[in-house]
């Protein structure tokens, strides 16, 4: 399956191995792991003691599958995988894995970054941080919106 939403942690090495398994055409695997940082941009100097990720069950999986399908339509890649965790997460824990296989590195890098940028603006996940100052929902970052928009511009150009 191209997209998974789960509470459990994931093993990057095992996931990449499973994604590659049996496909001798693969020459390139680009991947990305997002991690809970102990300090977020908006948060003064206070560290994050924990984070909770909420999502929209049903829509989330559809949105992720649609993003992966879009990446496959845009670039010559063989396969792509997205794993996104939900629930309670602590600093340094893994949040998300995106991995893309292909023949050549350029296509896999572009597709992997595209999936991350679209996921950040189109997949229904919401982060809630707990800091020493209290709990708060994380605000969307404008840089995420502009990161996603640049793919639109390239596509239409």
């Amino acid at each position: 399956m191209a997209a998974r939403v789960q509470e459990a942690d994931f093993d990057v090495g095992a996931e990449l191995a499973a994604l590659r398994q049996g496909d001798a055409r693969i020459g390139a695997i680009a991947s990305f792991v997002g991690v809970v940082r102990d300090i977020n941009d908006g948060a003064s100097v206070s560290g994050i003691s924990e984070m909770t990720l909420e999502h929209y069950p049903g829509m989330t999986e559809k949105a992720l599958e649609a993003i992966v399908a879009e990446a496959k339509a845009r670039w010559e890649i063989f396969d792509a995988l997205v794993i996104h965790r939900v629930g309670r997460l602590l600093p340094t824990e893994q949040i998300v894995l995106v991995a893309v296989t292909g023949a050549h590195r350029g296509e896999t890098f572009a597709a992997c970054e595209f999936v991350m940028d679209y996921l950040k603006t189109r997949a229904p996940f919401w982060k809630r941080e707990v800091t020493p100052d209290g709990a708060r929902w994380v605000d969307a970052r404008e840089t995420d919106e502009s990161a996603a928009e640049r793919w639109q511009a390239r596509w239409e150009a």
Partner: protein
Amino acid sequence: MLKILYFASLRETLGLGAESLDLPPGVADVGGLLNLLIARGGGWAKLGAVKNLRYAVNQEMARPESPLKAGDEVAFFPPVTGG
């Protein structure tokens, strides 16, 4: 009947994650439904003040002018922050 869902800060503000509502006469799209909800007053009035409020109809991103029909699942939520 519509199924309406609220997520994240909206869910907390309203103290409600989901409700069912008969599609009211005269409400033809997401924007119409939103206005109806805001008109309830109290916490609902805040829906009109949410910056960049997002909508989904039947689990697809939607816009104020997206049409609604009986049986639809409509979701309201703030901009997403996953990844």
